[in-house]
């Protein structure tokens, strides 16, 4: 098996494996999601209309707003939650939300992670080793 590995400077949460949903765009649970339907709902988002449920989101950065700190926990309670968040950079809100919701998160790579990972690729997120493995 040939796997490509990317190392992150920041990591937390459990090891998970799933399909990557990739876009050079930001992320905010309040701004971008229909959390009832489990889709990106902001019309201008590059993933508009796509389901985020059970996916590894590979995105650029965090957007404004503090609600994500609660919303990841709330989404997880209903099973309508991303499997993991992988971003070039995060703000404290995403980290705080991932900590409360126990959602896997990686951030801070030496390259643009949204360009390095293909949309739909199968990936493994291993926070304990601060790495993303593209399978």
């Amino acid at each position: 098996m040939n796997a490509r590995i990317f190392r992150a400077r920041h990591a937390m949460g459990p090891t998970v494996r799933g399909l990557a949903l990739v876009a050079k765009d930001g992320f905010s649970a309040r701004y971008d999601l229909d959390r009832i339907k489990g889709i990106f709902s902001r019309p201008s988002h590059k993933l508009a209309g796509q389901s985020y449920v059970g996916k590894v989101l590979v995105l650029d950065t965090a957007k404004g707003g503090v609600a994500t700190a609660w919303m990841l926990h709330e989404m997880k309670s209903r099973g309508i939650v991303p499997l993991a968040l992988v971003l070039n950079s995060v703000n404290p809100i995403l980290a705080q939300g991932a900590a409360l919701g126990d959602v896997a998160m990686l951030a801070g790579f030496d390259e643009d992670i949204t360009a390095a990972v293909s949309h739909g690729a199968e990936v493994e997120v291993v926070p304990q080793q601060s790495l993303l493995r593209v399978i």
Partner: protein
Amino acid sequence: MGQGRAGRRREDRLTAMKLNDEEQDILAGKAGPVPQQALQHQIKVGAFFGAADFVPVTQAHIMADTESLGEAGVQWLEALAAASEGQRRVRIPTITDPRGTDFAKADLLGHTQAMLELERRAVAAFEKLGVAMTNTCINYQTIQAPTRNEHTAFGDTGVVIYANSVCGARSNFEGGPSALAAGLTGRTPRYGFHLPEARRGTLRIQVDHTPTTLNDWGALGGVIGKIAGNYWAVPAIEGIEGAPKSDQLKHFGAAMASFGSIALYHLVGLTPEAGRLSDVASADLPVHRVSRADVEALQQSYRTADQVDVVVFSAPQLSLYELGDLASLCDNRRFSVPLLAVTSPQVKPDSDRMGYTARIEAAGGSVLSGMCFYQSYAREISEARGWKRLATNSAKLVNILGGYGYRPMLASMEACVEAAVSGRLVRT
């Protein structure tokens, strides 16, 4: 065994921060399970960002509307509140951001009994934790503005950027769980904007005009936020003339934080840390020029309809001065579509006393308090009331509401009031 190794590695991460004796005791549970859980959460976040230790904070401000909390979040709060008296109360003044409703106007918003009951449960839990239900996102205007170098744990991005930039205080974006944790432990991980080196400018912005209206200030903040683009960017802004008012910088910062996740800016020659450019930034930083046309282009990008279903003044909550201006525009007018003006519980009684509320409501408007439109089940309001095309003078609000299914439009307070009268937003 594998799980055991993983567990030990996780513990290594948890203990990477330097803890003093008091923090060791809290982590060991000697202050009870609630502060212990709070500190564990803070250590996770601090370790993620490489914080070396904790910094004491003087105030905490919690964003916790029930749309964000959901049933799960309220149950989480209730579990904390169930701890025994003496082991569950916050240690420092801890206040709240807007709630998920205004109970007095819930029918107008189409809020259901289930929403209201969830709200009541959240409030009861917060009160057991010793949190003061101020329900405001303009606490720097209404409760107590922080002072320069004061370390705080503020939620609501608009509050943080105002406190950091205008007041010279020190806060990161503290989401609800982390702000509550800070209240319970009296400290927060020392990373980000608690560190002097993170407060240096990372890019220069040169503007060619100084806005006058609140929507123009908000739009300028939005343009700069989009350029800066991420939380760790600190714009050093040159070209603003005169002395901006608190309400102007309120809209400016709230929009910058919303569009760009920005937590700190410097206005060279105006804000406390930036007497001169060299105080906060190197002259060789990249320079971005922002023109009046850029600001107008952002506003025009939201002018997607002529008809208006509702007019909303909110995000941030209105000051007494804004309500006074609005009341003057409402005199002798009659609205054909709903107009909502949202303020804080501290300002509302003054608005009532000054007669502003009566003048706005005589025209057919409604003055609400203790909530903010986008934090109050905006999607459900739209579905219940059929409101899609929304006019506002808040750049922050138009940035947020697209994801909730609205077609938000940005215009001046004057144009919005005219739209409430005619049902049409006149293009300028």
